[in-house]
């Protein structure tokens, strides 16, 4: 809808007045007085009369600040001063927003403040998206970058008013960031990654918000960047811009691995669901996370008895709930088969549930495969524990759960089998009940099969995860070490181990470092 006549000029005048106030020396000393007088002025001018006018005020103000930044950046006369000039305007506008949020409603009315902030952030995202759509390759991220960073800093500074609404403030930011995620505004992608990984944002969300309430919000933002990168990474041909964003994402993951490994532990399943299978190092990075209070036994310890480690009794947390990924009908039949091993036709029909097309490379619903594998595995662990047992190649053999795995590994074609084996290998992490079970399951599949092709693919899935640069998940190492050292598996007798000099050298080199 059209802006009311005269509103644009009124906003322009008021905004210019504010920018002058902001940069005058007396602001520090007389801040409260100046703010109160300005808010009264806005009220007097009718700007704060209703939600519609407030929103228009912010939208027009933001558009003006953005326009000014574009003019400044594009003016060759400014040279090296163009960025500071942009900061000059944007910082003033940010301060105006912060003042209005602070003075919105009574001091105890947190809802009014959060609502106003939400309105402002959503308005700014709409301005961004419209600008991005209009200017296309001429879009410049600077004004929006400056806005989001400065307002975040101000709202997260120690302050009794903002401390009381800290979590709702973070929620507003997460909502806004999600709206301008890279797939919606790819021209903003680099800044977006910088915003979500800013030290203030990360520490507030992952560390300072109690009961880990910030974790699901940050999880969503990481999923956003993985989903954006995924199609480009899948092609394995990285142009410099994509490589830069990918490398930036790796840095963010390294910070999380170092400072918040429990976060990566909890959400590993959903991250691996969206990371393409060929991004092995990125996936390994996530899978190698382990709780900070845990001491990992050296996987190269001779005669390491994994089944005796106390940690393998403990089940890891898997977030968010993945069982919803399994279609209810399939789950019902799956539960029935696990309980009764009937009907036999269930196994024959299973592949049909997983296959969604006949196009090579896209035949299968990999999310469903991942969820199915994890669900069957967790059911198997619960079953074995109920029999007071510990998962081992002996105890897991001949269970309904392994029936399902063994059937799938034979029935699926090479593409499906690769995805299926990846789903198992994605559970080889730090010492816990899932790592132990899935390690036994994978080795059992290797030992029990008559098909060398299956053994070859199991080896391929493990080897490709080992030949990348570090880090390597603990569970991956102990599984591979067992595979090459344990005479049960007769590993070195297989032809595929010696199929080419490079492969042979690879195995020898990996085995050397393992032995």
């Amino acid at each position, binding site marked *: 809808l059209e802006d009311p006549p005269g509103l644009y000029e009124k906003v322009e005048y008021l905004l210019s007045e504010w920018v002058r106030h902001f940069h005058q020396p007396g602001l520090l000393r007389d801040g409260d007085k100046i703010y109160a007088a300005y808010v009264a002025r806005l009220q007097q001018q009718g700007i704060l009369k209703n939600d519609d006018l407030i929103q228009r005020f912010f939208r027009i103000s933001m558009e003006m600040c953005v326009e000014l930044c574009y003019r400044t950046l594009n003016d060759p006369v400014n040279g090296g001063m163009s960025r500071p000039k942009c900061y000059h305007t944007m910082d003033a506008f940010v301060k105006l927003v912060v003042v209005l949020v602070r003075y919105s409603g009574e001091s105890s009315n947190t809802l009014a403040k959060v609502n106003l902030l939400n309105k402002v952030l959503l308005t700014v995202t709409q301005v961004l998206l419209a600008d991005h759509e209009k200017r296309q390759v001429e879009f410049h991220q600077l004004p929006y970058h400056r806005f989001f960073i400065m307002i975040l800093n101000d709202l997260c500074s120690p302050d009794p008013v903002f401390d009381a609404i800290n979590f709702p403030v973070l929620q507003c930011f997460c909502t806004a960031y999600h709206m301008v995620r890279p797939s919606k505004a790819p021209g903003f992608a680099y800044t977006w990654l910088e915003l979500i990984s800013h*030290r203030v944002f990360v520490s507030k969300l992952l560390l300072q918000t109690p009961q880990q309430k910030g974790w699901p919000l940050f999880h969503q933002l990481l999923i956003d960047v993985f989903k954006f990168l995924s199609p480009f990474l899948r092609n394995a041909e990285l142009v410099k811009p994509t490589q830069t964003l990918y490398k930036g994402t790796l*840095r963010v993951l390294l910070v999380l691995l170092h400072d918040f490994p429990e976060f990566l532990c909890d959400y590993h399943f959903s991250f691996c669901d969206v990371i393409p299978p060929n991004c092995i190092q990125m996936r390994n990075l996530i899978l190698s996370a382990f709780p900070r209070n845990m001491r990992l036994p050296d996987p190269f310890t001779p005669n390491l008895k994994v089944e005796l480690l106390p940690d393998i009794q403990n089940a890891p947390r898997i977030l968010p709930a993945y069982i919803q990924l399994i279609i209810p009908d399939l789950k019902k039949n799956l539960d029935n088969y696990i309980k009764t091993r009937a009907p036999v036709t269930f196994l024959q029909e299973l592949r049909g549930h997983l296959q969604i097309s006949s196009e090579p490379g896209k035949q299968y619903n990999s999310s469903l495969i991942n969820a199915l594998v994890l669900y069957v595995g967790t059911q198997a662990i619960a079953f074995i524990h109920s029999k007071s047992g510990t998962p081992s190649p002996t105890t897991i053999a001949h269970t309904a759960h392994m029936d399902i795995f063994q059937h799938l590994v034979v029935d699926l074609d090479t593409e499906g089998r690769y995805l299926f084996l990846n789903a198992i290998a994605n559970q080889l992490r730090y010492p816990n009940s899932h790592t132990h079970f899935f390690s036994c399951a994978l080795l059992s599949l290797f030992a029990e099969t008559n098909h060398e092709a299956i053994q070859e693919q199991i080896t391929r899935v493990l080897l490709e995860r080992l030949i990348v640069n570090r880090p390597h998940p603990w569970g991956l190492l102990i599984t591979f070490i067992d595979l090459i050292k344990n005479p049960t598996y007769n590993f070195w007798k297989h032809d595929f181990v010696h199929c080419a000099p490079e492969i042979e050298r690879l195995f020898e080199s990996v085995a050397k470092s393992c032995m």
Partner: protein
Amino acid sequence: MVQDHYGMVGLLTFIRGAETDPNLVALALGSDLTTLGLHLNSPESLYSTFSSPFADSPSRPQDIDYPVPQEYLIHSYIRDKLAPIRLSKYNEDLLFYLYYTSGGDLLQLLAAHELYTRDWRYHKEEKIWITRAPNMRPTKVETTYEEGTYCYFDLGTWRKAHRDMKVEYDRLAERPSIPPA
């Protein structure tokens, strides 16, 4: 053997391809993550000094904004009274501080230039600033080197100390060239 992408032959083809195409390496074989500019073995948190996903070093202390009491923010009152920066007026302690905390910045070069003017020389191999010890001539002076007792600035203890050294002249950095502006 499995003949398509999903077996050992597929992996081998990929490995061979990766020998000539760095793009293929980046994803699957990966890179050395210790070269991304993060101190991965640091006992301190990384997020607190994380500069940017696109920076290859952590933030310098002076770049990390921190909320301070409003009373400390006096710049707008005194900005017209502040003297311009003149390195020639500062003592060596401050020069060393500016040098070591301004890596990759013009200020580092200016501090190095001023230290050079005060007869300090940067030893490129030892990575220390040295100067002849006061009142102590070198014990040996040749065309390409000299020997004696030298004063050096110890970054670890943040003070000057002495040591006997043989100083090869070609290991010393030249006077830094400052851009004209």
